[in-house]
Each structure stands twice: as C-alpha cells, then as structure tokens.
C-alpha cells in the first residue's frame, strides 16, 4: 500500500489547518454561506436533508486495518455509529456536526486519509478495480497508475476550477470491474500486440447522470510514460471548451458528444503534440517509487487446492455456498480474494456499523496482509486470503452479520442514499432495495437466478448507477408521489451498455412485482447456462416489456 511521504503528509496537514480556519471564519461570520460553500465542498462537506454529510476519500478503494479502525472510531465518536460506502469507493458519514469536522479531518490525517476533492468541480478520487493486484485476468496492477494520478491531480492549479466534476477510473484487467466506460476518463492497461509493451487504452466522455454516455476510445495504445502529458492534453481541451454556461451541459461527455469523438481526439492529439512531455510526465524514478509500494505481499507457497477448505465445504453446505458465491480465484495458488457483502437482507446497501468495520479490520490484519478494498458495488474485499482460513473468517463474519452469500446476485443491490438522506434526491432508494431484497431473500432462489445486477438511484444524477444496471431503477417525483422508472439491459462491464426504459413509472409498492415478472421472463426463456444479461441481449426487450405492462395493468 502507498505510504505518505513528507510532501503528502505536509499537504494534508496544511489542508486540515486551512479548513479549520475556514470553518472558524464561517462560524464567526467572516465568511457567508455563499463564500463558504465551495470551500466546504472542496473538503467533502455537504449539507444534506437532516444534517451535514462528510465524504472521505478512499483512494482507489484501498484501505488498511488501521485506517478502517479510525473510520470506525470517527463513526462512533462524531456520527451515529455507522458509515455508508459509496459507488465511488468512498465512505460517507451522514450526521457530522460542522464544528467537529476540523477534528475529524485531523483524525483522518493521522492515518493518511482526507476528504480533499471528494466534491466540487475538480478531479475527484480516482477509482480502480477492487481486485487490483490479485485478479487472474490482470495484465498490470492499476493502483500505481491511480496513485500517480491522485498525486498529479491533487490541487492541480490548472484543473481546480473545471466546468464540472471529473471522474477517472483505472483497470489493469481484461474484465472491467471499475466501470471505466461510465467515467469522464477510463484507463485500461493493455499490452501492445506488436511490441508487447504495456500501454493505456484511453476512453473519454463516459458518464451517467442526466445524459448517460458510454466513453469513446481516443487512444488505443498510449505508452505508459506519456500518461500525465496525455491526461493534461485531455483536461486542457475540456477546460477550454467545456460549457460553463450550463451545468447540465458542462461534463466532458457533452463536449465529446457535440463535436464528435474524432474531432475531440484531433484536438487532444494537437494539444498533446504541443506539450512539453518530459516536463509534465512523471519522473521514472518517482513512478518506480510509487510502484514499489504496491509490490505483492509475501505470499506463502501453498498448494493450489486447500484440503482444509475442501473438508470444511463438504461438512458445511452453507459455508460451501458462501465460498462459491463470494470468492474469486487469486493469481497466487492457495489464496483467494474474498468479497464481504454489505447487503444483508433488509439493511441499507453499503452501510456498515463501527463494530462491523472493526471486525473487518481485525480480519484484514490477521488474514489478508492488513489490506482491504472498497468496491464500487458497495461491498468490502479481503484481497489476499489463504483458502484454508476461509472457514474461520466465515464464522467471524457471521457473528457480525456479514456472512451473506449474495455477491453479484439479485440481492446485491447498488443503491444511493436517496431521499432518506440526500438533499438532491427526488425519491427514496433504500426502502426499494430493502423490499426487493425481502422478495428475493431465499438464497437457493438467488443462486437459481444467477448473476443479476439491480442498481437504484434516487434521482437523475445516477449515483446508484441505474443506467448500467441489468435492471435499473430510477426514483422520481410524479404528481406529488414517489415514482420508479425501470430500465433493462444496462451493463457496467467491458460490454458497457445503457439500459432502456421498459414502460411508465411505478409506485414504490409495485416495484418488487415488476422485478419478479422480469425475472420470470428470464427464467422461462433462458437457455442452459445463459445469464440474465446475455438472455436480455439475445431475446431483446419485447418479452420483458410485455410482462412489465402486465404489472402496470394489474396496478391500474
């Protein structure tokens, strides 16, 4: 894991001091709310419905146990004993008091964390594949790239007042688990077919929200050494030409869409050609210094299959099912990457109590080289677990209510906080997720249905990624009540797609029935081994629309 050097440390401490002073000036009246708002947003402080909210950056979703314990402490001491992991791999506290925020920032700085650039019109926290460094399909660990971009983009003088927020995601694997095509910039590490050199494929102009777009590839193979100069060229074209007159048209996706990917690429390449690459690109020594922090841990030499694990599975079917659903193969024999579900039936997706955070921190320290990850799907990962330790981990997770075997299944729902917390929301999300979870609570039925991603947003801003859900649910207000629009066929992976609307909006209580009907169409129509999304692609939307209309007719 990356460790702060003296510059990082000083930068974060200075920011704490600066924001402490800004809060003091707000409280003594020297700063008006209009003056203070952009300053607090730059430091992750929002005003929500019931209270302030503090968004803490978890760079590329990587945490150590000390950091998670500190988050648990902050949750207990300054909040209500829980936090919410977000679709950008961050953590939000829902109830902090403004007067306490400076102290919280100090506690975060103690463990090399901060809230810088988790809001505002700047380059936000860089996200990455949550299986970085361990996935079998990985070409190169994306975290050194993500860390380099974090350092480059932190308080970058030219890109601190962009037309709008800007999100970058990185993957180094074949399968896209970082939703890179729905980001302003998506980076994929890949090998050049001729030179076999590792390069970046660069996509620009993806995004969800009001105008969902899939990113367009602007460079197929960028040499790694040119990364920062090329990013700078993209940011310059956007910064100069992005719309500042209309916030709904200010994202880079609108610029790419309006002038076309070809013209956008031409402008970026022209800017790139003019830039003095060597003065912008990172010093290779610095790149190597960063990369060294992400060297693999000292794995033991283990047999590929653990007899201990196999015996435990054979004698405990519930454990065997959990292993089957929640673990993925690791690049090192005898190890596995374990996803801990934060989606127990009936809980708010992504919420974890301070007690649960401490339990996971203890497990990470003991069993996973002190490392854990936050996923964009609002779960946690122990990335380096010996297969033989899985049973002990499962038992300890069970005691903390964290042993749900539902990763990637119908109850592993992504959900934004919605109108239960968020000031921007137009409808609630969490109760919809809870109702669907209850409907599909039976574990055998979930496994029978197989991989199915439901994603719920409580407003058009799409923090719940509904556009790229296999089934997407968007909460809106319609004639004074909450109404839910259902989309189908979205995909957040390397086959990225935006879902299509099935029909008119539904009342909240009708949503579980509608999901049930959609699932029934799939179960009746699927061929052997065909997943939900593959089935939707093969048979098209019509049969699902027909079933959906029965829901709306039944409700009428």
């Amino acid at each position, binding site marked *: 894991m990356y460790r702060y050097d003296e510059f990082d440390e000083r930068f974060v401490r200075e920011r704490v001091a600066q924001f402490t002073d800004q809060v003091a000036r*707000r409280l003594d009246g020297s700063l*008006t709310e209009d003056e203070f708002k952009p300053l607090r947003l730059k430091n992750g402080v929002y005003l929500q419905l019931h*209270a302030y909210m503090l968004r803490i950056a978890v760079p590329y979703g990587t945490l150590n146990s000390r950091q998670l314990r500190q988050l648990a402490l902050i949750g207990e001491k300054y909040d209500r004993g829980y936090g919410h992991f977000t679709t950008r791999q961050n953590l939000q506290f829902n109830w*902090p008091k403004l007067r306490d925020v400076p102290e919280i920032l100090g506690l975060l700085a103690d463990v090399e964390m901060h809230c810088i650039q988790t809001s505002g019109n700047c380059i936000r926290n860089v996200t990455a594949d949550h299986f970085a460094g361990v996935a079998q399909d990985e070409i190169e660990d994306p975290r050194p790239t993500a860390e380099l971009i974090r350092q480059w983009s932190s308080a970058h003088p030219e890109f601190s007042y962009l037309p709008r927020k800007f999100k970058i995601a990185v993957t180094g694997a074949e399968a896209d688990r970082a939703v890179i095509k729905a980001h302003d910039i998506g980076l994929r590490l890949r090998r050049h077919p001729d030179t076999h050199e590792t390069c970046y494929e660069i996509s620009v102009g993806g995004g969800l929200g009001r105008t969902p777009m899939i990113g367009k590839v602007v460079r197929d193979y960028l040499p790694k050494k040119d990364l920062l100069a090329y990013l700078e060229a993209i940011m310059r074209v956007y910064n100069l030409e992005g719309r500042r007159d209309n916030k709904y048209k200010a994202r880079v996706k609108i610029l790419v869409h309006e002038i076309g990917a070809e013209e956008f690429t031409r402008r970026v390449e022209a800017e790139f050609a003019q830039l003095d690459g060597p003065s912008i690109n990172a010093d290779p020594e610095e790149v190597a210094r960063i990369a060294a922090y992400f060297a693999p841990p000292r794995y033991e030499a283990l047999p590929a299959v653990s007899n201990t694990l196999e015996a435990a599975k054979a004698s405990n079917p519930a454990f065997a099912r959990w292993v089957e659903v929640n673990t993925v193969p690791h690049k090192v024999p005898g190890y596995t990457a374990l996803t801990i579900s934060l989606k127990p039936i009936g809980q708010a997706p992504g919420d974890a109590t301070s007690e649960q955070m401490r339990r996971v921190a203890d497990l990470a320290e003991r069993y996973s080289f002190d490392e854990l990850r936050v996923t964009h799907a609002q779960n946690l990962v122990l990335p380096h677990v010996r297969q033989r330790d899985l049973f002990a981990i499962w038992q300890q997770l069970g005691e903390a209510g964290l042993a749900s075997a539902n990763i990637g299944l119908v109850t592993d729902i992504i959900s934004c906080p919605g*109108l239960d917390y968020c000031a921007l929301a137009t409808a609630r999300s*969490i*109760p919809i997720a809870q109702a669907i979870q209850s409907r599909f609570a039976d574990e055998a039925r979930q496994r029978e249905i197989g991989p199915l991603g439901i994603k719920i947003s409580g407003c058009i801003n799409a923090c719940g990624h509904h556009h790229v859900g296999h089934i997407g649910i968007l909460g809106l207000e319609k004639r*004074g009540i909450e109404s839910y629009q259902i989309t189908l066929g979205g995909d957040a992976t390397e086959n990225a797609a935006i879902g299509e609307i099935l029909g008119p909006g539904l009342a909240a209580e009708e949503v579980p029935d509608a999901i049930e009907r959609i699932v029934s169409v799939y179960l009746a129509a699927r061929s052997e081994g065909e997943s939900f999304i593959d089935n939707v692609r093969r048979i098209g939307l019509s049969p699902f629309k027909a079933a959906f209309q029965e829901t709306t007719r039944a409700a009428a």
Partner: protein
Amino acid sequence: MAAAAKRVPLPAILLANDLLDGDVVFAFVDGAGPLAWTRDPALALVAADDAAADRLEAFAAAELRGNKVVDAYLVDVAIESGSPVPRHFRERFKTLGPSNRPDLGKQAGEGIVAAPKG
C-alpha cells in the same frame, strides 16, 4: 431564499438547518417572545396569512445574514391532529429522519424532548 421567488401556498412553516450542527430547525415563538428556532416540528409557528409569512421570511433573511442557520425556506403544510405536517414527502422526511432508520432523527425524538433550542 430569493425575495422574488413565488411563495408556497399557505399555511406554511419556516424550516432551516442549524449552521453549527446541521440539525433541521423550525421557526417558533415561545409564548409572547420573539421568533426563535426549535428542533421540534410540532412547535413550528404556522403562518396562515401573508402577514405571518412575511414575518417568517424576514426572520429567515435575518438569521441567514446573522449566520445562525443555512438553507432556510417556507414549506406548505396541512394541519394534522393540531400539528403542521408538510404536504410534500421530501419535507415530511425532513421533519422525521431517514425512513429506513426509525431509531434516528426527529422520529426518534432526537433533539426534541431534551433540548428545544431557544
């Protein structure tokens, strides 16, 4: 709150977030005293006519200027069992707390029983 904005239908109450701690607060009068803030929505002063609404708006403007609260605005209400209840579901949630956590927020009595703010 822009002075020129169209006023919500009456009756209405004035709500805001406390600057220091973010809690939702409501304008009220304690006896014959001046307008002040309370955390208890049941105590909110209900403005039934334009004169009363003007008074709430003037109070909001002064309190925003005085850095006591943020995001102050009038909310139209119905009177249910003698208490004002916002007509819109969004504002109703503001008077209650997160619907998935009945143990938190005003619905759990937070800040209401112990410490009405004067």
